[in-house]
């Protein structure tokens, strides 16, 4: 992979910024609410990381939080990431918290703080997986890149539900996963389809 150039920093119109469709992370509403409170209190102290076309590679939750606050512009850092591999590198490295937190040192730091002051703070204890492990779980960890060509097309199907229906579906999928030993929701759905299809 070619190196990624860091181009410039500045302000971009939020209306020009686009969430990256291939972002492998999900954003939870509760995290956005926390970020809204933090940005209101401290201002923005981290730029969104974007490519030249305004594709957001790092900071999807902050983009949502800025939108919720009603900001029209966002502080951005622009990188020259033209390929999928470069974009994914930036996205994963942006979330790769190097190291971990020492619980004892943390306790010393926050032990005398009022509990209310700790609201909205989280802590990471370093339960990382290497990208190699993630591939190994799919049984393709050490194969040469050329051998991956035939598995490089991953299909995705999105099934939207209202909250109440979603809860019903999720409960069944969890039940199937537990009872039938299915690894994830996709496997659980396929098992169900096989049982109920005409």
């Amino acid at each position, binding site marked *: 992979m070619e190196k990624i150039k860091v181009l410039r920093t500045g302000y971009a119109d939020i209306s020009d910024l686009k969430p990256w469709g*291939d972002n492998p992370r999900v954003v939870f509403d509760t995290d956005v609410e926390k970020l809204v409170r933090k940005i209101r209190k401290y201002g923005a102290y981290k730029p969104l990381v974007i490519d030249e076309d305004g594709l957001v590679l790092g900071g999807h939750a902050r983009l949502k939080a800025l939108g919720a606050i009603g900001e029209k512009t966002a502080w951005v850092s622009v990188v020259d990431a033209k390929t999928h591999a470069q974009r994914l590198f930036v996205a994963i490295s942006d979330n790769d918290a190097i190291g971990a937190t020492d619980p004892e040192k943390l306790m010393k730091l926050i032990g005398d703080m009022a509990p209310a002051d700790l609201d909205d703070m989280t802590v990471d204890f370093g339960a990382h997986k290497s990208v190699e492990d993630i591939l190994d779980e799919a049984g393709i960890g050490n194969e040469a890149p050329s051998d991956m060509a035939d598995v490089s097309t991953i299909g995705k199907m999105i099934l939207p539900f209202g909250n109440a229906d979603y809860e019903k579906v999720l409960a069944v999928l969890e039940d199937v996963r537990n009872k039938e030993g299915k690894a994830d929701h996709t496997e659980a759905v396929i098992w169900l389809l096989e*049982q*109920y299809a005409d």
Partner: protein
Amino acid sequence: MPIKITEIEKDIRPLSSLKEWVDNPRFATPEALKRLFGQIGMTGDELYKPLLALSDGTVIGGNQRLRVMREKGIKEAWVFQVDAGKELSRTDIVSIAQDDNGRAGAYVEESLRAQVIIADWEKDVRDLLHADTSLPVDMRAFLDGKAKDIAGDDRKADTDSTKEKMDTYQNGDQKQVVLFFMENERERIEMLFDGVKSRYEVDTNAEALLAICIDYAAANAK
């Protein structure tokens, strides 16, 4: 097409003016620092997000980057002074520092795996990246002692609840179940959905899944 950026100047400071935060509760193993060494190298030894520093030069966000940059012999770095024009309490400083290491949201592991395959990185690039597939622990829960045994059952409980969340996208009042599969399986999955839609006389795949989930739940409640 490139979007318009109103450029601002980066606050570039010599590393000699910066110092590590002595109260930093974070640590990194030599292996982790080696990864960071490589990551910074991939962006030409330049940072794409600034170190967070106080006016006295104490770095409260980016201490590991500071260490690695010194090791690399880099002389200056992009800095954002978090207390410029305002006074921050110790709580504020801790909050900003924790946030710098925090992450909003979580990985959808199947999606992450798919994207990594598509990226088709050489092994030396794959070796530079780790992904945390668990959720960060709530600080209040940590203080309450719930996260006392991080390596034990509590951590597992966190991971389990993360797994549940990772299989879904949340989008306001609507939630989504997302299926990931090899593209060459799509036809078979669509055929199975068609079979269910025909049996239950519904139009969409989501309605079909809901219908069989209702039947499954009813059958298993008996």
